[in-house]
């Protein structure tokens, strides 16, 4: 990006170039002052719910990230043990992460020792930077570091573009501990079981199971109300759902939407994804192109929040995946 801008600046005519250098200089000075001030704006206190002893959930808004919502659009939470606290997802900006950290400090008397990211998406990870002073282990799927490296700069650029100063201090914080299959974390009298999944919602999906309360944190392997989003592999997503349904959990906490009883919670999502699979396979079999398929996409069916924002994208991803099968 910087290289391209530099090349463009050079191509301008000489008088404009001088002018441009001045403006760029002023711009750089403003940037310096901003970063010197550099603080993310304050947001209101995060509302928390406490569905089981030691389990705290903050429900993000069912919306895309905007300045008005501070990027607070994903569900976040934490589990409190006798020894320490595990945070599960940190929000879409530093501001959200900081608000979550303050909420934890109000409730827990033990330190934060783990910050777990359920996957790479920005609404779940950009609050990580608010926890670096706690020196926790940052924990993610074995592919999370690579995914953050590939996607991080683009996510940060989009966050700054769309949220402006609200995005201050938001940063990529890579995992310091990777989960390849399953691992347990001991919070002191409380065991969390982590499980890394093959590519499904993304290629970095990680679930967290609290044995004491039989609570299952699914990240974006479960959407409730919010239309499911496909950014990995559709058949992998459906396979993960089939496997997850066998987990004997009492309560399921989705990445978006209200916590519900398990496995009933996932039935609408499974129907939706199965429907896309059938629809897109039929389109490919009927020799319809991706553009033709998108033009005639089924907009009926169940009512989902944010359907217009994500459904066509899901069909696009499914088509690109499935056309190699035919």
């Amino acid at each position: 990006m910087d290289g391209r801008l530099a090349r463009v600046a050079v191509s301008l005519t000489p008088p404009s170039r001088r002018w441009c250098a001045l403006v760029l200089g002023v711009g750089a000075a403003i940037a310096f002052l901003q970063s010197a001030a550099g603080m993310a704006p304050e947001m209101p206190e995060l509302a928390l719910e406490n569905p089981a002893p030691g389990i705290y959930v903050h429900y993000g808004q069912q919306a895309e990230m905007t300045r008005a919502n501070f990027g607070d659009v994903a569900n976040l939470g934490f589990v409190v043990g006798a020894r320490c606290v595990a945070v599960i997802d940190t929000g879409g900006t530093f501001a959200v992460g900081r608000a979550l950290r303050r909420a934890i400090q109000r409730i827990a008397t033990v330190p934060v020792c783990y910050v777990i990211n359920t996957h790479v998406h920005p609404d779940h990870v950009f609050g990580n930077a608010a926890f670096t002073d706690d020196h926790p282990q940052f924990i993610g799927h074995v592919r999370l570091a690579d995914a953050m490296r590939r996607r991080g700069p683009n996510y940060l650029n989009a966050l700054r573009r769309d949220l402006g100063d609200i995005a201050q201090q938001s940063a990529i914080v890579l995992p310091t501990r990777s989960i390849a299959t399953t691992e347990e974390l001991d919070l002191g009298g409380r065991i969390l079981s982590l499980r890394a999944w093959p590519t499904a919602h993304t290629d970095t999906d990680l679930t967290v199971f609290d044995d004491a309360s039989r609570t299952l944190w699914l990240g974006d392997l479960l959407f409730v109300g919010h239309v499911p989003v496909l950014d990995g592999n559709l058949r992998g997503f459906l396979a993960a759902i089939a496997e997850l349904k066998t987990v004997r959990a009492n309560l399921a906490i989705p990445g978006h939407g209200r916590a519900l009883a398990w496995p009933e919670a996932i039935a609408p999502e499974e129907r939706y994804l199965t429907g896309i699979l059938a629809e897109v396979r039929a389109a490919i079999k009927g020799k319809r192109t991706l553009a033709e398929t998108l033009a005639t996409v089924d907009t009926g069916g169940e009512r989902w929040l944010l359907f217009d924002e994500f459904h066509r994208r899901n069909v696009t991803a499914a088509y690109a995946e499935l056309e190699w099968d035919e």
Partner: protein
Amino acid sequence: MTARLACVILALGVACAGAARGQDAGPADSAVWKKVHASMFGNAILEAADGVVTLDTPKRAEDAAIVPLAIRAQFPQTKERHIETIWLVIDNNPSPIAAVFRFTPESGRADIETRVRIEEYTYVRAVARTNDGKLYMAANYVKASGGCSAPAGKDAVAAKANLGRIRLSVHDGVEAGRPAIAQLMISHPNDSGLAMDQVTRSYATPHFVRRVEVRYAGKPVMNADVDFSISENPNFRFYFVPAGGGELDAKVVDNQDLEFTARVKLDSPRLGAVSTPH
């Protein structure tokens, strides 16, 4: 004045690291485009593409990694009048010239459908040169996708594992002398290598398709120089004019000089042979 405006936009970009921005004033005012125009076309005037080509893009990149687009010629390819070259330009991608497609009278129609990555709010342009040397441009503004969609692929490990699968196919119902649709699919990460490793501060190795050559009965029907603005698993739909039997063959070369080939015999026009890189 417009240069100054661009300057202010650039400076604000530096100051605010790309705070929310609206659509550029018009397709001619894009700073990147001015540079591309000067370097590719010099002082040549580009006429409006009405009656020559249309460019179909979505208004918004739903999935930043897979944005379908189509460039359609508005007249058939003949010896007397045909489109020779179409440049596909995406102003605000890291490498704005996404592809240069070349057609012949044997193409039948100078249509091309493919999928691209869209990094940012941007103009997308198709510039067509006809055989009389005239240049025509169609331009559409495309909004970037929402925050959780990235131009990177969905599964880097799978993309590497599937590298080199290639499929060339021809639609059913081929008639001699009438333009027929063919599709070329290449399983390839088409990776820019632009993502920096946050730990080592080094860049990944770029690995992308750079050249596509399709011939029918030994004559070129569609050639393309492409780069990593084309989506992972590059996919092209185009026309050629069959004459009874004969063979359609495709050769694809990437920037590491891996070569992938596929061919279809027109008497069994379903799927092309799958070949391994060599």
